[in-house]
């Protein structure tokens, strides 16, 4: 990855303007041609540095029911349970954790009923010993920015 790619990744994370040619604008800011910017974005995507470039919406505003779920799963059934959870399209994160509650995932469903049904199904799977539903009580922060470009002064090359 070249230096300009770091700059591109930093800039893209701050969002695209809702205007006719958002890439043109970013290219101008970075001092490169729009064609070069698009070519580099495509490459960064192909190489797996960019997962997705698109809209991000608030699922709760769209009428979705969301919760965090913690499970205690027996080791011999662990990956099988994780695989079944992954098949639900409303599961956005699913992690193994170093704790007796060893499997944690987030679930968004279109209704409470769908949530209840899915969790009942998970709870009944072989090896699932405990299941805790941990819905959000208060929202503090949701943001992520991975700084790719070092400040000029931090550059120890």
């Amino acid at each position, binding site marked *: 990855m070249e230096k300009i790619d770091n700059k591109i990744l930093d800039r893209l994370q701050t969002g*695209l303007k*809702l*205007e*006719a*040619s*958002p*890439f*043109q604008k970013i290219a101008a800011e970075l001092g490169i041609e*729009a064609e070069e910017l*698009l070519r580099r*974005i*495509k490459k960064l*995507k192909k190489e797996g540095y960019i997962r*997705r*470039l*698109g*809209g991000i*919406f*608030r*699922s709760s*505003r*769209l*009428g*979705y029911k969301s919760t965090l779920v913690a499970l205690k799963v027996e080791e011999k059934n662990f990956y099988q349970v994780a695989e079944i959870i992954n098949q639900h*399209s*409303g599961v*956005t994160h699913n992690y193994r954790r170093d704790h007796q509650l060893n499997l944690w995932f987030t679930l*968004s469903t*279109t*209704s409470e009923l769908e949530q209840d049904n899915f969790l009942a199904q998970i709870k009944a799977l072989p090896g699932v010993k405990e299941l805790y539903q941990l819905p959000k009580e208060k929202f503090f922060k949701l943001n992520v920015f991975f700084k790719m470009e070092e400040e000029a002064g931090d550059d120890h090359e």
Partner: protein
Amino acid sequence: MIMNNISDKKFGEIVDELDKKIIKVLETDIPLNLNPYQKIAEDLNIDRAELLTRLQKLKEKKF
């Protein structure tokens, strides 16, 4: 998360069918060309100005 089945409860009262279609498209990747919104608008059979106006409104309404 791709919202294949946007809930009608509550959601339907606030935004209309076209907004739902716009959200579904935006949840996938936007086209990597000089006029990405033009391409999305064409796919939805609306003009670009309308798409941008609606996106602006969805943003203002904190969707």
